């Protein structure tokens, strides 16, 4: 009984954090223009991938957060879902095989995942006929977003480390 309650609590915690991240991303991007460069759902997918180190929950988290993101976007449903699923899996695989405790490693990983995410979404956009801009502007956007996400990701991971150390 106690185990079941713990499981429900854990699932609830994940669900709330996923919804909160998508909602906060939408509101902050609306109120603060520069926030359009950040991709909180992506950072959260990588964050859970690294910290859990388990591919199955990371895939479920990536799928859920991607679909939530799609529902408020103008891309076909499944575009961000596909991308975030893959990123969740890769982050979890990397998290279980490599040392991702170094801030530099995390920053580089988030940067690469951001560029990869943009690349996958563009490819899916071309395949489904919903591609947005192409060319040098898009590449530039990916790079800028990669830097922004890497910086924010480092802050979030740093905070997580401090909380974890304080608790242990």
């Amino acid at each position, binding site marked *: 009984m106690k185990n079941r309650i713990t499981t429900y609590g854990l699932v609830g915690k994940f669900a709330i954090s996923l919804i909160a991240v998508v909602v906060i991303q939408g509101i902050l991007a609306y109120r603060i223009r520069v926030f359009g460069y950040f*991709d909180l759902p992506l950072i959260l997918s990588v964050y859970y991938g690294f910290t859990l180190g388990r591919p*199955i929950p990371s895939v479920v988290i990536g799928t859920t957060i991607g679909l939530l993101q799609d529902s408020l976007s103008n891309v076909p449903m499944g575009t961000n879902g596909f991308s975030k699923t893959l990123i969740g899996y890769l982050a979890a695989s990397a998290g279980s095989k490599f040392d991702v405790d170094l801030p530099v490693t995390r920053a580089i990983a988030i940067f690469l995942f951001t560029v990869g995410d943009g690349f996958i979404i563009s490819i899916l956009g071309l395949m489904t*006929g919903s591609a947005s801009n192409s060319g040098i502007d898009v590449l530039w956007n990916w790079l800028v977003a990669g830097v922004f996400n890497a910086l924010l990701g480092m802050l979030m991971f740093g905070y997580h480390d401090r909380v974890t150390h304080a608790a242990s």
Partner: protein
Amino acid sequence: MRTVIASKKPAWITLAVALVFHTLLLSAQTSKRFDTSFVRVWLLASLGPFEKVVDSSVGGIENIWRGYIGLIHVRRDNEKLLSENGQLRMELAQKSEDALELARLRKLLDLQATSIGKTVVARVIGKDPSQGGQNMTIDKGSQSGVGRDTTIITRDGVVGRVIASSDYFSVVQLIIDSQSAVGFIVRSSRRLGILRGTGGTELEMEYIDDDNDIKQGDELITSGQDQIYPKGLPLGVVLSVGPRQGNFKVVRIRPNVNFGRLEEVLCMTDHLPEVPAGQAP
């Protein structure tokens, strides 16, 4: 750092199932064999209330802060407003006379008073959570008569159209979105064409060759030929007529609406096919 050691279950099976699910979902939308819009509507209906609550809280805090800062300048502003008020009263009296004269002339010409149609005011509660996306979420849905392809405007001009709506929330595609296209007429020369969003802050004209009379400063209005936006709504102003790139010229347009400062919008739930001149909000 990791809280749990790696799972021994075959993770790649879960990954494959998830990717196949997304591929099927994408394929269903592309081929239009199955209507998958219910997934988006259901998720929008679930996320909308959270977005509205958070937006209201953030807006409330912002208003308190602005109110506090505003008090600092309130006296100076009050004096300025009193002076403006006197001037406006004079102008209003003059305008009232003009309005009465216009009504008399209309009656003489047997013209009926017209309007842009039925509209609903909606509040913007969020923006596209995807990187570079040009959509926004509003707090009105099918319960208020807002549905797919409902035209969204402000008093400055066209904002966009609804692409998905649940009972109480809708997602709006802005005209600056790179997938958006709007039919236009140049107000002075009556030339027809198509405007496309750039994904940035501007619009671009499509298929403009050398044989055109479009010039900087030309005003554009909707043509109504796209069967979505009613004719006669202000769109924007020609910013520059650039050099030829390939077969066509690059003509950049500055939209009338400031998309960075949208708070309230009007949803045209029922409108005439053409908005009469001078009646645009």
